[in-house]
């Protein structure tokens, strides 16, 4: 901190005089930040002016929403805090969607916004927005900094809050005069002071005993594996637990990758578009072990008849999640990995082969309903694309980043994730436009990884301006547009629940190949099943990014589906032309 770059004035032994703007970058560097995603503007200009003295790499985005998704993708791919920077007013409000996305998926990001001078606050000055007020309910915490001498402590607190406990977004709004003003910078003295913040909770001994009793007495247990496993880094512990106790594992969307898809105890994804047998297992279970998941309505279906015979153990770091949606019998509040390490030595090996055998029974005729097994109709289905993409890339260090909608569910069903952080997707908020910018953040975090964007034609057009960012940063990212000419998931709801009244869902799209060309990105258009593998191979061999426009069956539907408000076992199944089975309802 005392090198020539900031031309500091030594005043005392440990402090140097610096501007708030210089303190900002200095603190980010000390927090381990190497990349930020941002967009300049008037109120953040002093910070940008000081950036030239920093080693931090700045990725210039094309829209501030993109900056937040990039920071989010960076955080999800790396487990580190992602950083987004924007100016006041519209720059800051453009971040709102990305902040809410990170909030609902517990992703640690720090957003730095410029603010008008502290004397102007409240005057409706040019580009003034009360962004701490706006983001209050969608951040884990936020700060307004009005003096240079508050910058260091605030940044340190912001990073600590963002990444500890249940992670989440923190916004730091810094007035222009706080950036321009000077202060004595002393990193050591700027330690976080958060007397009310206690992210490190742990269960009471008797709660462990109660949990163990339920586990050992259960005959039909299921583990519900969520995002918390990945955040906590508890993959090995969950595996040990499942194997030792002989308990099958169902995953949430954000849990995919937390437990290997190929593991014999892996049931697959649960919930609205989960596999039928998984949902049936949950409904028949006598014990649910919720590991770092929050009983979202998309995984429970109707709460009135959710897992009616099951006791519930909820291991969760956020006490406010306990009994929020589902009443649980034993809550274990704490870090999942630590709680499992506490439980593991006491887990008895119990033969549950009868219960495990029922997986095969419940799978029943599901295979014949699988689009992969239906006779080739000559149409290209999204499931074919995902399946081929998986087969081509499964052995590599591949990260798939999806958008939101039908393609997202097909990805979740057909791409078999073996490793944590190999699927990056917006779950809780369901943010269309997430994929491309999140993939940029992912690639910046993991330059060695092969990054694939799987995105619908609707969502892609929400943030496709970030193609320019991708090119400017010279990132090799592949984009698979699953193009069905519809807002497909909305169309599916219209098909099932609104008498096929396809209002405002058909899309008139640009020629995506030409669009890619305009950015200097290689492209291909695929409409035959036989062309999928060659296109994927050519993308992998190409030295730069590539966009593939997969023109798929227009009115395909994601099956199975638990309608909103229906019981979890009450699923709409893909009609099978081969056999009619007892499963048809």
């Amino acid at each position, binding site marked *: 901190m005392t090198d020539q770059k900031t031309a500091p004035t030594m005043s005392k032994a440990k402090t140097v005089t610096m501007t708030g703007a210089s303190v900002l970058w200095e603190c980010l560097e000390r927090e381990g930040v190497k990349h930020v995603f941002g967009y300049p503007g008037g109120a953040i200009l002093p910070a940008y002016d000081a950036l030239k003295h920093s080693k931090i790499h700045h990725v210039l985005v094309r829209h501030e929403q993109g900056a937040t998704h990039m920071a989010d993708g960076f955080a999800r791919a790396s487990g580190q805090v992602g950083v987004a920077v924007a100016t006041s007013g519209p720059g800051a409000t453009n971040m709102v969607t990305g902040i809410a996305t990170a909030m609902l998926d517990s992703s640690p990001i720090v957003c730095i916004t410029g603010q008008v001078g502290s004397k102007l606050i409240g005057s409706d000055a040019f580009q003034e927005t009360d962004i701490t007020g706006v983001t209050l309910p969608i951040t884990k915490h936020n700060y307004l900094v009005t003096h240079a001498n508050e910058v260091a402590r605030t940044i340190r607190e912001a990073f600590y809050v963002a990444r500890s406990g249940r992670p989440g977004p923190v916004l730091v709004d810094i007035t222009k005069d706080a950036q321009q003003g000077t202060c004595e910078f002393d990193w050591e003295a700027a330690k976080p002071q958060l*007397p*009310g913040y*206690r992210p490190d*909770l742990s269960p009471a001994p008797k709660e462990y005993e109660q949990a163990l009793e339920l586990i050992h007495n259960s005959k039909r247990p299921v583990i519900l594996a969520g995002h918390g496993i990945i955040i906590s880094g508890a993959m090995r512990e969950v595996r040990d637990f499942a194997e030792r106790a002989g308990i099958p594992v169902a995953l949430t969307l954000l849990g995919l990758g937390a437990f290997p898809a190929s593991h014999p105890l892996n049931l697959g994804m649960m919930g609205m578009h989960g596999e039928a047998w998984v949902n049936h297992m949950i409904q028949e279970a006598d014990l649910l072990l919720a590991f770092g998941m929050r009983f979202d309505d998309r995984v429970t279906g109707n709460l009135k008849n959710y897992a009616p015979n099951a006791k519930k153990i909820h291991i969760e770091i956020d*006490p*406010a999640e306990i*009994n929020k949606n589902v*009443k649980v019998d034993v*809550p274990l*509040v704490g870090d999942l990995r630590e709680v499992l390490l506490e439980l593991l030595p006491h887990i008895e090996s119990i033969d549950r082969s009868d219960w495990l055998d029922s997986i095969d029974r419940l799978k029943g005729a599901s295979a014949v309903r699988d689009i992969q097994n239906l006779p080739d109709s000559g149409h290209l289905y999204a499931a074919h694309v995902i399946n081929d993409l998986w087969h081509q890339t499964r052995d590599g260090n591949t990260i798939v980043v999806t958008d939101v909608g039908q393609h997202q569910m097909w990805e979740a069903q057909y791409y078999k994730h073996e490793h944590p952080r190999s699927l990056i997707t917006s779950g809780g908020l369901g943010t269309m436009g997430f994929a491309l910018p999140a993939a940029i953040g992912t690639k910046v975090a993991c330059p060695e990884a092969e990054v694939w964007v799987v995105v619908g034609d609707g969502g892609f057009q929400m943030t496709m301006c970030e193609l320019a960012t991708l090119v400017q940063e010279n990132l090799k990212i592949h984009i698979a547009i699953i193009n069905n000419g519809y807002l497909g998931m909305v169309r599916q709801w219209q098909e099932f629940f609104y008498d096929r009244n396809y209002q405002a869902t058909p899309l008139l799209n640009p020629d995506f190949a030409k669009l890619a060309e305009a950015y200097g990105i290689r492209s291909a258009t695929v409409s035959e099943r036989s062309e999928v593998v060659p296109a994927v191979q050519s993308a992998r061999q190409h030295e730069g990014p590539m966009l593939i426009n997969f023109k798929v069956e227009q009115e395909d539907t994601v099956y199975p589906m638990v309608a909103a408000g229906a019981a979890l076992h009450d699923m709409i199944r893909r009609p099978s032309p081969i056999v009619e089975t007892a499963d048809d309802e």
Partner: protein
Amino acid sequence: MLNTFMVYVENKPGVLTRVASLFRRRAFNIDSLTVGRTEKPEVSRMTITVDADRDQARRIEANLYKLVNVLLVENITNQPAIIRDLALIRVAATHDARSHVLELASVFRARVVDVSAESLTIEITGAEDKIDGLLEVLRPYGVLEMVRTGIVAMRRGSKSADAASMTGSTAQGAADDDVSYSV
């Protein structure tokens, strides 16, 4: 049922908004909220009453703890506590009625703080039902104006949680023997 929470918070700008916003955001309806200084300049104290069942009350407590500026939450609904509300009541009291009103005020140990030709203004402190009781008997005379502060509360007996001891250490959980997810 009405739950009463004592909430110790850092004395910083915006904390009241965070607490109020939490109740709105999670769709809990605040019945009364008071906030004021404490014996420690860095700590403010809120007394919040809210209509909630047992589970909701627990979730409110857990959600309050999620606010970084909240130091300690105590649900004193079923605890022995001193609970006080203050009301100023302007009641119509012309010459004939004045002595009756004064008598009623003295029965309730209320004080007359302002007198005019047409009215008396009465100050009363006490539990909410005591104030409700006075209001009830004054109503026939004509209540011209009334304002109440909302309640402040303090545990009976030994000192409530020490705000200084809240820092850093693990605070005590819910007072009863149920699950310990409150902190």
